[in-house]
């Protein structure tokens, strides 16, 4: 389903170059919940961005659901991201001038307003749907971001430190939402340097210094 083969990513040039990923091969089967962890700066987020078609690797290939992500044109890759991937970020990245519902609709590209509203309700924000991100708590913002990631019913969710800014109570709520999506057959690749997500995952991949150090079930 998600397949990265021999992926390397170098930032910068010459003596200042940083090898963020070195010959990483990674895969996630359909319906799998994979946690990628490791220390800060080890290349976890770079791998996630590469998997999501957001960051072209220096070497290697990425295939998602049979699509060669970086063999596609920019427009095709954009369409692929819209339909196949749901992103969740540590800093939420909700559009500040849109309401919760509009943020979800922003991702929907024509999905019914009713479905978006139902999703907002399902993440516990029914009474917050007209609020702007600045009027929400951190946990509420992340739940809104998860609703946005789910609105197109993508087969894969890529989550980059989604609980990194949350207190334990909200951390659990967010992980429960992702587990619920996984329980319905979705694939989740979650990057974290914490331990809480480990109890939800099928596999735990550890990256250190741009290389996969371990891959445990």
């Amino acid at each position, binding site marked *: 389903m998600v397949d990265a083969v021999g992926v390397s990513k170098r930032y910068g040039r010459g003596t200042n170059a940083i090898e963020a990923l070195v010959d990483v091969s990674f895969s996630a089967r359909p319906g799998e919940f994979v946690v990628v962890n490791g220390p800060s700066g080890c290349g976890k987020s770079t791998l996630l961005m590469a998997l999501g078609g*957001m960051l072209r690797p220096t070497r290697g290939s990425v295939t998602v659901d049979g699509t060669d992500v970086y063999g596609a044109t920019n*427009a095709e890759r954009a369409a*692929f*991201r819209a339909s196949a991937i749901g992103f969740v970020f540590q800093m939420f*990245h909700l*559009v*500040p001038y849109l309401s919760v519902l509009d943020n979800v609709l*922003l991702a929907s590209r024509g999905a019914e307003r009713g479905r978006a509203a139902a999703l907002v309700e399902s993440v516990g924000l029914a009474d917050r749907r007209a609020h702007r991100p600045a009027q929400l708590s951190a946990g509420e913002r992340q739940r809104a971001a998860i609703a946005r990631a789910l609105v197109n019913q993508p087969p894969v969710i890529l989550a980059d430190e989604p609980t990194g800014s949350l207190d334990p109570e909200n951390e659990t709520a967010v992980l429960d939402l992702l587990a619920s999506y996984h329980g319905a057959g979705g694939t989740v690749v979650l990057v974290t340097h914490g331990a809480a997500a480990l109890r939800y995952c099928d596999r735990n991949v550890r990256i250190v210094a741009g290389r996969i150090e371990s891959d445990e079930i």
Partner: protein
Amino acid sequence: MHTPRLIGQEITHARLNTILSALAACLAVAMCVFLVMTQAAARRETRRVMRDMGFNVRIVPRETDAARMYLEGYSEHTMPFEVVHRLAEQDTIAYNHLVATLQQRVDIDGVSAVLTGVSGELFPPGRKKPPMSSAVELGTVHVGYEVAQRLGVRRRDTLTVMGEPFRVARVTPQSGSIDDMRVLTSLEDAQRVLGLIGQVNEIKAIDCLCLTPDEDPQAILRAELQRVAPEANVYLVSDMAEARARQRRSTETYARVLVPVVLVVCAAWLCVLSALNVRARRGELGVLRALGYGSGTVVALFAGKAALIGLVAAAVGYGAGTAAALVAGPAVFEVTAKAVRPDGALLGLSLLLAPAFTLVASFVPIVMAASQDPAVALVGE
């Protein structure tokens, strides 16, 4: 979610940036509208002031002795009146306000005066202007202040000139020049009284040359005259002509310098604000790309906002510039105050050019936004 709605929502969210951007564009439009409106008035004002200074071109018979003409004030030779018509029929000559005159010193009851017959003004095709000089009706005279004082004549009196009676239509106010010693008649009356039917000894005109300082207007005018009326010669009253050209140049230079300065400053202001807006929205841009929106959408978001700001600035700036011109214009341009008036065509032009201006000013930030690496934006935030 449609792009126009996103633009609208972002504008209401980033109010300060939007207002400051609109202010810059508004200032540029207002300054341009103000300058265009007042420049038109300034040009008219210059024309009027220069016109009031009098004619600056003297066309006289070729055989005229210049030294004698300067001493006497007129040429002792004459040329056919038909020459003025020939000149007026040319649409390429650089003279306007052509007036034929016939002058001669005469004795009126022991007072020496200059009898001056003047024709009506003639204009080259398509260049008709309001006349500069007042016409003298047949059978009447305008008597110069000094002549009137010495002869003791007043308006409506009868003055006999070379045996022919004329009604005094006007006594001209004191001018402190040779004009105080003139007796003005119509050209026909002067020709008849002086026995020079169909003859004139000078054609006065205003040159319409807008030259740079290194060009020689007299040479240009002579070349033109040689082609049309070889029997005549032209003299330029250079101090008047230069004053006229200088005034015109300074007015135009003022606008030529000020407009680009204002536009560049406002464009830089817009560019900085647009770049700040792009920077502030890095995360949002990254998310849009992550959600599958292409760079076209990003360009549309920023270009749409810039164009909208331009449109609003065009309307508000036109109003502000027009109001400023209407308030300040009449105080600055007293002679042509009524000429400062709203120009609908300027509004249309503003609505067309202001969005183009804001788009050009925001071009670099828009390209920055479109080419921004979404991953860097999202991970770096």
